[in-house]
């Protein structure tokens, strides 16, 4: 064909009439997006396309599959349209639409009554929301002790271990120094946190020739591109890591200079038997002491010019003996039980391989060190001409976290990082503002209530010892979820997964109103899903519900909606205000501080309201302090007004950018009425670089400390050193050993003593220990696909074509043994239940592990899908196999299936066996159908037809 005969093309067609920049909410990554709008046929604005914001610090222009599918989420047929009041039985999905005034009056009536009688009768828990700074404050002003978000079944082990050890966690509190690292070691990661930064970083690292080692029983996604895959046995990561520690210590390949200055390795530990055994030795001013080689006497750790000992036996100034923490640590991990030969088989690895990985870590850290000529001054007043970088970095998330040994495993990874000197240095793991922050800068839990009064402080905090537990005077749990009790003393994110079970059991007490936001607790966000549905519908002899009232807010027709008595319909993420706040889970990067907003780039066309505005309205209707002024008038018009004008401390509010009347102040400053306009003009976010001299060694770096005070992260410098020996844990252990006024009940004494080791320790996953592994030989785990977030993605016409049904992936050797072929049906049987699912062979996984994608199965009638949708027929949840309690031990006690330190739900501990099933048409179990309050989606979608 000659050029002359080619059709004429319009190569510069109009793209959009307007671009509005906001923050994505297709998962928890919180990327910046450019929403291109065009006028539709009726003149209303329609989305032409969504792409990543190139200027945004999180995603720097890229966007994942979920983000690009935001169009289908925004126009989803499953969107709720108006407030709903239940008219049929719970779970049926039979509702009538009511007006907002009626809905809010109902809610105010229910909530006002119990606030006046007993605020504990409200349990308010939120799911995947990003407004916990508001929701927690509301709950505090209401006065119920029963508030938390969903961290208890997400990754609290990771968060808690990070704070108690480093003063910040992997999660979103820090990240890899991608431009400098040379070896990146990744443990079981979740795809929905920090996902684009991880993908960008791994791509960059590979392009520079860096190496990735991925530790994961399943070789999908990130693990597929790793240079080396460690297909570890689930739940043994801690054992593996402590064997690496053993090897590094054995070979003397640890950063002694770093450990001595920047960790508590030299701090003296009391060795006198009694109530102070294992605690730090302190001077009269309470300062921990080290033994100084130069003066040959104890000195406060923060004194300048010290040469602290790391080993030895020294006189305790108060009498008796003391040793540096490092000596205790070295002796512990040099024991033969931590040698590669002792642990390799259990981990599913060879001893030689563990030794080689240890060598590679050491070689990269020490033989390829980075020297950055960046002068800085530490908190001891000592000046340093440069920063030494250890280009070894780590990241871990749910694969470590969702085990009953996850807290101490996460601590073990942090210990490994510290031995390598690879935290807060070039090429290592670096914090993101407002982290680092020491334990001491965090609150302790508050739980004591009185009618019509706020709680005296925040619900969630970090206990320093048994005195901070949320217990009543008689030792009974103060909270409905039993957070901060001896069963799980450091449950710093609460235990949302226990709320329905405990409320149903009325243990520790019954509640009146269950108020949930954005948490699909009747489906994929609960373990033991079938039983939870029964608990939500359980009735008393008189026919009333055992959990009397349920209020739920969601944007979409989820499974949980069907179980609510009153539904408060939320907006889509493009129709709402939000703040991604430094008071909450911010979006900073190691070199910059940032926060962001969402704003209504499209106006709702339904009777829906942003939940946070509704919560503020309810706060005012209830007359909660802070929500009304002295005349009882609402303080805030809506969430947007709150975002601008609320001050948590004088000058410190939800948003840090463009503060002050003239908008010229950052961090601290008076509210600025034009603040949101400034954010919008800047692309929906604010960011500022961290000064060059404040970018490394930040817990000890005075330039950073002073900058952080200026930003309002805290009100005075809070330098600290990393805690490889965790004294708060030792305080709980001492109580279990019989010391102090508050001690664990007898049946928990042994568990607390074992679990609260001040040095990282490993124990077999509880479920495995409680059953016969021969009967349940396989580990079963789930993971989140990159192109689907929770159950949300199921309603998405594009994403459901990618992940519309799931299979159980089984190693070829297991398939062969059972005579299974691809797409055959099998029963998956746990000690708790069984499901019938289709299987598929996959050999790139640990042979003793089976796995599937998370939250693909749906209940018939939910999410505006047709009841015969594959999600409802063949899609399945592993949740049915997991119980919130361990199998009975015969002692009559209820043993929680969770981490004994934090209460993190141990849903990755699951053990199963497979049995071949007869051919079938559908998965089992399939709880009955719910009626859809929004009908069913259209047959066809031809998005964009008006422009083509």
């Amino acid at each position: 064909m000659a050029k002359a005969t080619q059709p004429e093309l319009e190569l510069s067609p109009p793209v959009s009439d307007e671009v509005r920049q906001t923050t994505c909410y297709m998962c928890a990554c919180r990327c910046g997006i450019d929403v291109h709008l065009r006028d539709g046929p009726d003149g209303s604005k329609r989305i032409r396309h969504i792409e990543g914001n190139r200027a945004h610090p999180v995603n720097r222009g890229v966007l994942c599959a979920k983000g690009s599918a935001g169009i289908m989420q925004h126009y989803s047929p499953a969107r709720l349209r108006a407030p709903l009041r239940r008219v049929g039985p719970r779970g049926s999905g039979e509702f009538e639409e009511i007006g907002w005034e009626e809905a809010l009056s109902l809610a105010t009536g229910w909530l006002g009554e119990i606030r006046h009688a007993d605020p504990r009768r409200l349990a308010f828990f939120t799911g995947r929301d990003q407004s916990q700074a508001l929701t927690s404050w509301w709950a505090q002003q209401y006065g119920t002790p029963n508030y938390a978000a969903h961290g208890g079944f997400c990754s609290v082990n990771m968060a808690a271990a990070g704070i108690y050890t480093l003063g910040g966690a992997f999660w979103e509190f820090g990240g890899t120094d991608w431009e400098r690292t040379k070896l990146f070691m990744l443990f079981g990661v979740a795809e929905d946190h920090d996902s684009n930064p991880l993908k960008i970083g791994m791509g960059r690292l590979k392009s520079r020739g860096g190496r990735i080692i991925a530790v994961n029983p399943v070789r999908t996604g990130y693990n597929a591109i790793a240079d080396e895959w460690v297909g570890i046995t689930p739940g043994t990561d801690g054992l593996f890591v402590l064997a690496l520690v053993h090897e590094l210590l054995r070979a003397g390949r640890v950063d002694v200079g770093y450990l001595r200055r920047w960790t508590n390795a030299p701090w003296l530990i009391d060795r006198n038997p009694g109530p102070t055994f294992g605690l730090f030795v302190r001077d009269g001013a309470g300062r921990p002491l080290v033994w100084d080689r130069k003066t040959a006497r104890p000195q406060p750790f923060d004194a300048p010019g010290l040469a602290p000992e790391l080993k030895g036996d020294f006189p305790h100034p108060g009498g008796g003996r003391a040793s540096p923490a490092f000596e205790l640590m070295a002796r512990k991990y040099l024991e033969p039980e931590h040698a590669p030969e002792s642990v390799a088989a259990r981990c599913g690895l060879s001893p030689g391989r563990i030794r080689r990985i240890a060598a590679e870590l050491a070689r990269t850290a020490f033989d390829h060190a980075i020297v950055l000529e960046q002068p800085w001054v530490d908190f001891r007043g000592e000046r340093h001409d440069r920063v030494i970088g250890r280009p070894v970095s780590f990241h871990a998330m749910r694969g470590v976290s969702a085990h009953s040994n996850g807290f101490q495993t996460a601590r073990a990874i942090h210990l490994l990082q510290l031995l390598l000197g690879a935290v807060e240095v070039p090429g290592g793991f670096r914090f993101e503002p407002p982290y680092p922050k020491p334990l001491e800068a965090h609150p302790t839990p508050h739980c004591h209530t009185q009618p019509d009064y706020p709680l005296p402080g925040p619900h969630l905090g970090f206990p320093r010892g048994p005195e901070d537990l949320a217990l009543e005077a008689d030792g009974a749990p103060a909270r409905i979820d039993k957070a901060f009790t001896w069963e799980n003393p450091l449950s710093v994110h609460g235990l949302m997964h226990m709320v329905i079970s405990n409320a149903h059991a009325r243990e520790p007490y019954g509640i009146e109103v269950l108020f949930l936001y954005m948490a699909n607790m009747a489906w994929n966000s609960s373990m033991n899903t079938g039983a939870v549905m029964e608990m939500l519908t359980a009735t008393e002899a008189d026919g009333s519900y055992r959990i009397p009232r349920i209020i739920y807010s969601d944007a979409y027709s989820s499974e949980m909606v069907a179980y609510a008595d009153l539904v408060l319909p939320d907006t889509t993420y493009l129709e709402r205000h939000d703040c991604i706040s430094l008071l909450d889970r911010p979006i900073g990067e190691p070199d910059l501080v940032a926060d962001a907003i969402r704003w209504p780039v499209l106006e709702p066309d339904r009777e829906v309201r942003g939940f946070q505005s509704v919560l503020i309205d309810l706060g005012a209707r209830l007359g909660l302090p802070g929500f009304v002024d002295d005349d009882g008038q609402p303080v805030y018009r809506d969430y947007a007004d709150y975002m601008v004008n609320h001050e948590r401390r004088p000058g410190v509010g939800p948003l840090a950018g463009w503060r002050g009347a003239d908008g010229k102040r950052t961090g601290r400053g008076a509210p600025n009425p034009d603040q949101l306009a400034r954010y919008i003009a800047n692309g929906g976010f604010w960011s500022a670089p961290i000064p060059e001299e404040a970018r490394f060694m930040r817990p000890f770096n005075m330039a950073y400390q002073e900058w952080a005070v200026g930003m309002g992260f805290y009100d005075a410098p809070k330098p600290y050193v990393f805690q490889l020996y965790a004294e708060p844990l030792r305080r709980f252990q001492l109580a279990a050993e019989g010391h102090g006024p508050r001690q664990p009940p007898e049946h928990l004494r042994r568990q607390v003593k074992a679990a609260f080791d001040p040095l990282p320790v490993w124990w077999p996953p509880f479920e495995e220990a409680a059953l016969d592994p021969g009967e349940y030989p396989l580990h079963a785990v789930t993971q989140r696909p990159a192109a689907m977030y929770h159950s949300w993605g199921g309603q998405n016409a594009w994403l459901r074509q990618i992940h519309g049904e799931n299979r159980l992936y089984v190693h070829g050797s297991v398939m062969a043994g059972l005579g299974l072929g691809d797409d055959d049906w099998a029963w998956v049987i746990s000690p708790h239940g069984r499901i019938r699912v289709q299987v598929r062979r996959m050999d790139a996984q640990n042979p003793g592990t089976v796995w599937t994608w998370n939250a693909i199965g749906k209940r018939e009638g939910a999410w505006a899908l047709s009841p015969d949708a594959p999600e409802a027929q063949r899609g399945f949840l592993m949740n049915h196999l997991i119980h919130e309690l361990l199998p009975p031990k015969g002692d009559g006690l209820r043993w929680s299936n969770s981490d004994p330190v934090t209460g993190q739900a141990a849903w990755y501990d699951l053990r199963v066996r497979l049995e071949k099933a007869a051919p079938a048409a559908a998965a089992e179990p399939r709880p009955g159908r719910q009626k859809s309050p929004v009908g069913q989606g259209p047959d066809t979608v031809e998005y964009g037809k008006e422009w083509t």
Partner: protein
Amino acid sequence: MTGLPNSTERKMGLVIDLDTCVGCHACAVACKEWNTGGYGAPLADTDAYGAEPSGTWLNRIHTFEVAPQAGPAQVVHFPKSCLHCEDAPCVTVCPTGASYKRVEDGIVLVNEDTCMGCGLCAWACPYGARELDALAGVMKKCTLCIDRIYNENIPQIDRIPACVRACPTGARHFGDIGDPASAVSRLVAERGGMDLMPEQGTKPVNKYLPPRGRDGWRDGGDAGEVNLAALADPEPGGFLGWLDRALERLG
């Protein structure tokens, strides 16, 4: 039958790095959202909320397991779209002249005004890179975002295909593969970029960069292991003895 140009002025195409593709589907969905409102008919979805959802996609991700001779099984993610072949059988088979290869840049396109939806081109394409839209009845395929790459209404930096713009790991590269000095050509040369199914004789313009070696470790005897072990044992006094000397050095 439709003729192909003897040569094209440029050979615009994609270089896809299988070493860094994590199979996240970002490129596939970005492609769908751009193109459903862009060139030609929308990319329709049928039974969109029903039992057999099916839609038109111009780019799909395939996942394969590879079992090497030694070492554990590997997973390769393989995005596939039209390769804009120099000897494109989809063009020569077209009875109406609707399928054509552009002289300016070598992009293979379908003129939807003259496409009668006979499907011959999809049958002729050895890569399965064309999809007949169920509602519009016309053949859809990758256009390399021809309505983006020259579009003066888009900032210069964004005049790239939507898939390249979105890819989080940077695994997709766009440029003139006919120009040996171009960045994409240099990448192909450095990394041993490959044609997909060269035996088909279609001379695809798009190239794939093969995954680099994985799992090159072998237990025992390699330098790394020796390195660490050598340090360990000869030290008198074991680790704590070593520590003493380390502290002496530090002062």
